[in-house]
């Protein structure tokens, strides 16, 4: 925290600070995600820039008080534009020994630690292997520790409600939120209003949570233990109206908007899978915007139905994660052969197999690129932040419709659940995505026949002739088709031609040139990434530049086809670093395609890169020391 101190009206010190990272950590049942979400909303409403990182286990309720059951929510908010949820917290709220143990090593010395002491019983300490109580030994000495009996205080505050002790204690997360809200000068009305709406059908519960929230606030205000409070001024973002948005929500809105802009009904065929299910949940709310959602019997049926809908002239969409992509692969190949529009949303998670369902990774790139039998090229687009998912969805749909092809959109767990401010677009400025259906016979020989595989000279797209169109009855399928006429063909030369035509169509998709951010213009090191690592890479570049060194940053949104100038960009730097949350998949593509000595820096820990670690890698690279 970089801070300017002042003295507040109560004689207590108020420090102005530019940025703060808070991490709420507790048991899966402690409501940490809700607490974090709520603080985020307050920060957003206040006008801070922000970025969040929810981190929770795949188990819905692991045994209480255990390390596998720890759930956390990290929030970074600032008075300037920030790029990541922050490497390490400035403030750690630990609701139990397990949360303390799992998170303490991330808290820098001197950091603020707020501990709910009520859970530090002998039994709970033993559960996570604490031999002595850290609240009583000297292990917390390096931190500014506040020991607060949150459960007891909450219980006391709720006594007038007559609620059972056990029920009352469940509101302790709101106590924590109240305390933090006080510490950071956040309003109370928003949260109280939120609680009233959330528990509209159970007003008793709403009141109990509000009481707990106020008790936390008042605790900060009245006890002497908190000598300092902090203010983070609103951020000076670009002019506009903003809202807070997660990647999955932005993705769903992008799909709704794409349907409207294409003037097509949207059909989502899908199967629930973490961390993509929220896309289904959200889209299922928007039937009134022409969206049909179909929860199929499995991943294969989900994409099959979406492809059937596309054949019928709807915008077919399927949403999934890596394991689902594996199951859908054969249908994606069929869509390549049929040359029909189809949007495949892959919210990546840790793999292989079931892997780390709730953690992030970007290791599906090569699966999206090559994970099909035969030569089956598919365009790939990767959003770089939660809000960017909206634009990426529109871009993906543009490609799918214009070029009649399945398109991959690779999001990941970090941006799917993470949130940031989003400048709400004026729908008048959104692109028109509509494409015409075929209506007339097209045979070049004037026979009056319809040739379903006669291509557009510019895009190489075939006509989209939907059932119900008289005179264009035709049959398509997975068997190789004769160029133009579209009938089954086993002719060797025809197959060679069709394989190359399908590839040329994808290679020819128009994508904007890659731009390079090189403020000093004299950088010798280029760092190039893709997808959700944009934030950490950007934050690392800022640090390196702030230290007086030069580094150029480029970020790939289009992975297939790559922008035309990628080779030139790569070749104009002495050293190229490619950080990825996989074992070097993009680096391999770049090396293979452009014969450049791109150096991988990789990590697959289920968490985003930290700006600090990447800054170290880049600093080394500037000095000529490349990652092994």
């Amino acid at each position: 925290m970089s801070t300017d101190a002042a003295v507040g009206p109560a004689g207590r010190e108020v420090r102005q600070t530019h940025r703060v990272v808070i991490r709420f950590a507790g048991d899966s049942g402690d409501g940490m995600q809700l607490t974090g979400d709520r603080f985020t909303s307050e920060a957003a409403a206040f006008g801070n820039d922000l970025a969040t990182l929810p981190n929770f286990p795949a188990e819905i309720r692991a045994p209480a008080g255990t390390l596998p059951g720890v759930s956390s929510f990290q929030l970074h908010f600032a008075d300037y534009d920030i790029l990541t949820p922050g490497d390490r917290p400035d403030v750690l709220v630990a609701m139990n020994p397990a949360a303390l143990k799992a998170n303490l090593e991330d808290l820098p010395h001197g950091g603020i630690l707020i501990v709910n002491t009520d859970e530090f019983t002998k039994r709970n300490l033993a559960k996570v292997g604490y031999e002595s109580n850290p609240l009583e030994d000297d292990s917390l000495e390096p931190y500014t520790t506040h020991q607060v009996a949150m459960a007891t205080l909450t219980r006391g505050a709720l006594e007038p409600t007559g609620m059972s002790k056990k029920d009352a204690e469940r509101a302790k997360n709101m106590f924590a939120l109240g305390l933090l809200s006080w510490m950071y000068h956040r309003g109370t009305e928003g949260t109280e209003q939120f609680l009233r709406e959330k528990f509209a059908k159970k007003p008793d519960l709403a009141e109990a949570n509000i009481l707990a929230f106020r008790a936390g606030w008042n605790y900060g205000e009245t006890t002497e233990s908190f000598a300092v409070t902090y203010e983070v001024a609103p951020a000076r973002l670009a002019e506009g109206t903003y809202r807070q948005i997660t990647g999955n929500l932005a993705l769903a809105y992008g799909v709704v908007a794409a349907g409207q802009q294409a003037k097509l009904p949207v059909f989502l065929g899908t199967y629930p899978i973490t961390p993509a299910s929220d896309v289904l949940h959200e889209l299922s709310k928007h039937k009134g915007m022409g969206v049909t959602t179909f929860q199929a019997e499995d991943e294969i049926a989900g994409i099959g139905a979406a492809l059937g809908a596309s054949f019928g002239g709807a915008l077919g969409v399927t949403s999934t994660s890596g394991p689902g992509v594996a199951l859908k692969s054969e249908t994606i190949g069929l869509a390549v052969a049929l040359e029909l529009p189809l949007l495949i949303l892959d919210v990546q998670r840790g793999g292989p197999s079931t892997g780390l369902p709730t953690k992030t990774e970007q290791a599906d790139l090569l699966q999206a690129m090559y994970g099909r039998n035969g030569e089956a090229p598919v365009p790939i687009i990767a959003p770089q932040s939660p809000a960017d998912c909206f634009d990426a969805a529109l871009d993906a749909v543009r490609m799918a419709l214009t070029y009649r092809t399945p398109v991959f959109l690779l999001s990941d767990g970090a941006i799917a659940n993470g949130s940031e401010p989003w400048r709400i677009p004026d729908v008048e400025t959104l692109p028109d995505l509509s494409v015409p259906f075929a209506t007339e016979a097209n045979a070049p020989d004037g026979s009056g026949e319809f040739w379903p595989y006669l291509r557009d000279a510019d895009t190489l797209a075939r006509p989209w002739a939907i059932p119900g169109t008289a005179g264009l009855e035709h049959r398509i399928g997975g068997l190789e088709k004769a160029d133009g006429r579209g009938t089954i063909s086993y002719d060797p030369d025809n197959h060679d031609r069709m394989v190359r035509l399908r590839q040329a169509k994808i290679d020819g998709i128009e994508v904007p040139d890659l731009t390079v951010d090189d403020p000093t213009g004299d950088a010798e090191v280029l760092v190039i990434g893709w997808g959700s690592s944009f934030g950490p890479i950007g934050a690392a570049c800022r640090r390196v530049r702030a230290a007086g060194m030069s580094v150029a940053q480029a970020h790939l949104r289009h992975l297939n086809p790559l922008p035309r100038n990628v080779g030139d960009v790569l070749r104009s730097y002495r050293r190229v670093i490619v950080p990825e949350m996989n074992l070097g998949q993009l680096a391999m593509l770049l090396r293979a395609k452009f014969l450049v000595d791109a150096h991988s820096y990789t990590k697959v820990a289920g968490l985003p890169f930290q700006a600090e670690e990447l800054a170290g890698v880049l600093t080394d690279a500037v000095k000529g020391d490349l990652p092994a």
Partner: protein
Amino acid sequence: MTAVELGQPSFGGGLDLVPTTDEPQKAKDYTSDQEVRWCPGCGDYAVLASVRSFLPELGLKRENIVFVSGIGCSSRFPYYLDTYGMHSIHGRAPTIATGLAVTRPDLSVWVVTGDGDALSIGGNHLIHALRRNMNITILLFNNRIYGLTKGQYSPTSETGKVTKSTPMGSIDAPFNPVSLALGAEATFVGRALDSDRKGLTEVLRQAAAHRGASLVEIFQDCPIFNDGSFDVLRKGDDVAERLIKLVDGEPITFGNDNEYGVVRSASGGLEVAEVADVGQDAVVVHRAGEEDPTQSFALSRLSDQDLTHTVTGIFRKVDRPTYDDGARAQVTAATEQAQQRGDDLQALLSGKDTWAVLPEPENEQ
């Protein structure tokens, strides 16, 4: 949460929303320019001929008919019909038909599949399409063998069958497709023999008219890998004693002189008896429209794979709301509500909690 009530479902016909034409049609109009490439003697020829001559009877606009198939010999079917068609991938035709049926109520959607395609690799999709009661008609060509992969046993092959992949005889227990469909909550289940054009056409006629998922099992001969598998139902002196043709509302009797009848068995199922022994009143009456599928199920179990007593005709035909009608009703209701509220894309994107960032004051140093 409670479901949104959309009013009483109306049970129409399967083709109610499909546009019709007054132009007279012939089988030839449904014949594509593709050369049919099944083996000589394949039962698929007979089914194709029946379907081509039956479709004109529906009087639908040809462009509003779609045949979707999976993989296998029978799945080449769409290529030979001059309608819209898709030859998709193994076992997945019901999924593609599902997306099409939900988004396009103006189409008559047919699935053509085989015993391997529908019951092995695609078994999951078949049961769910039936359970959901999608408004599609599924023609399941059952030749009890894998033809296109050259002669392995299928999920309907008899136990003990010697094939290329089972030289010591198959140890698999077969599916009974009609039993399976009834168990999967199918609202229409029929069965016909490929060579019985009249019987097949009648089942097709009622299947097409049914609103909801219709499963039609067609016994079909593979002359190359399972030749003569249904011959006992075609020729010989005892055909009449083997083949039981269901007529809705009629007592179930068969034999050259209707001397046999289907009666209730002591175990609670059905069995065959001589009418002379049990009396006409003991013979059960077929009721395809009975909500309770018990009797239809028992009929499907009358005979083992040996075809001793093989039931054909329509086992079950009941009304139940279809998935696709329900899905569209929800979209329609939600769209009307959205219009009344004046919801639009801008309102959706904006949401409720927003904040404004104003332009920075100029010349502020």
